[in-house]
């Protein structure tokens, strides 16, 4: 049912391709944003409550007018309900949760969405959140072609994958061209393996390193197998930079 990519035709003749975020990335972004707004709202609530309980007086906020109660309850309520639209408006579709989850909102033309579109998208949370826990929104993202909720349908927006690491990877291209004897594809592979070294299991990284070094290092398979974990890593670095051992 779902469609993985949004392809925009460009005047250059090279299409702009966006990978559409699935329900998983969307939910992840939402959960992070939800926690941020909850923590902010609770922080305000607790700090002001403690201040009031500690005897701090608020001049002019008499109890009869409900000023004190408004000071305790109104800001956290506003933070909770307005965090999402305000964060999306300020960041133009990349709220903190979305940034961490590596997604962003784009219009159907691949542009930064307009203020109107972002407001409409947020208004329809009212329907998407029905009957509770965003059930309608979640079901919508599962059954629609481009994994969109009703708010996105109304505003003409989409959530696409936008990892910071993709942008930053260009900065690393110099590393890949440092060893002229090394094929850039292999250099890319080695660089990625080194980057993920600590997150991979010992067994897995050894297996991958041996498989790469068999084709690039001038060592026999026996010599390679004799290398320890740290030595394998150092050998990969040498291969990438072209430094002699």
């Amino acid at each position, binding site marked *: 049912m779902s469609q993985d990519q949004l392809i*925009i035709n*460009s005047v*250059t*003749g*090279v299409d*702009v*391709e*966006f990978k559409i975020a699935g329900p998983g990335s969307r939910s992840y972004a939402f959960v992070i944003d939800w926690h941020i707004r909850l923590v902010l709202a609770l922080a305000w609530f607790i700090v002001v409550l403690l201040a009031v309980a500690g005897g701090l007086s608020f001049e002019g906020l008499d109890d009869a*007018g*409900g000023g004190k109660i*408004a000071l305790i309850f109104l800001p956290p309520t506003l933070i909770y309900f307005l965090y999402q639209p305000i964060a999306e408006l300020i960041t133009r579709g990349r709220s903190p949760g979305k940034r961490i989850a590596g997604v962003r909102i*784009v219009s159907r*033309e*691949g*542009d*930064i969405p*307009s203020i*109107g579109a972002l*407001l*409409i998208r947020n*208004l*329809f949370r*009212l*329907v998407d959140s029905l009957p509770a826990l965003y059930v309608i929104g979640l079901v919508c993202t599962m059954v629609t072609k481009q994994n969109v909720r*009703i708010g996105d*349908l*109304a*505003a*003409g927006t989409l959530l696409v994958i*936008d*990892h910071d690491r*993709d*942008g*930053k*990877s*260009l*900065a*690393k*291209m*110099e590393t*890949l*061209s440092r060893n*002229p004897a*090394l*094929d*850039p*594809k292999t250099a*890319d592979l080695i*660089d*990625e393996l080194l980057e993920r070294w600590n997150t991979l299991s010992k067994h897995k990284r050894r297996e991958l390193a041996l498989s790469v070094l068999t084709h690039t290092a001038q060592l026999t398979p026996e010599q390679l197998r004799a290398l320890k974990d740290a030595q394998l890593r150092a050998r990969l670095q040498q291969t990438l930079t072209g430094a002699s051992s």
Partner: protein
Amino acid sequence: VSAEAGLAHWLNRRTGEWKELAQAAQRLQRGRSHRTEDALHAVEGYRSIGRDLSIARRVMPGSRLTLGLEALYARLHALIYRAPHNKAATLRALFRDQIPHAVRELHRYILWVTMLFALATGAGWWLIHTYPELIGLVASDEMIVNVEEGRLWTEGMLNIAPSSVVSVRILTNNIVVSITALCIGVFFGLGTFYIIALNGFMLGCLFAFTHQHGLAGELLKFVVAHGLVELSVICLAGAAGMALGASLAIPTHATRRESFQHATAEAGKLMILCALLLIGCGFIEGYVSPDPGFSMASRVVIGVGYWFIMLTALNGQLFRRLNA
């Protein structure tokens, strides 16, 4: 020259420009006003990144180089094609041209929803007039007791909370009701139909009930200053919601999605004006309506005057005059 060496040479040659373009894109994304040279540089860069991306997709598909170029290309595309920033002109166009256009497009729904509201009000009046004991369906026990004792529930409103708090509470509530009336139009208009009918019905019931106890005049006095615009705005929001429902039931564009998106964009513009009008209503309801110091005549002047302002805003005349 081997293919690998050629690739490495190309990579070497282009890396510097990619890095520079990535930084330029970041700068352009942050700022709002840019120099013409920066914009032209971005356009030129967009073209050259397009060529590089085309090569990268072919020779290194799925690599981080390709992903990086894809991200940069998409970022430049969004920057180049983003709408110009001119908030004042955008707002002027919205209030002078786009909202009146939306009103013209929705006029059929506005008419139908107003009729529905009037019918529901009539039905509510008839029901309570015929079966007074049914008032418990729409009014709380406290309200009923108050009216039976000859007092409106609105009396002494300002003793409970100051006008400012009352205003904010009322305008928030009204805006939420209007937004709900719009959004639940997504259920093929049925949600909106229900909200409008229910609001009209309750109004009719309460007027009939207060009439039976000789308080209808008092209620009218309370309502007239803010009610004309408030009820009109509820009907406008209902019409916008109905239009959403109709766009899904009877699409006017190639697909239901496009039709829905168009209807929402038009309705959204109208809702901006509705929200502003409701803020005014909230203040009138907080400061004027509960204050016994205002005579009936002054309330009528305020109510009718504000209603005319609403009409001129809806057809764009108000903002044309303000800008003239």
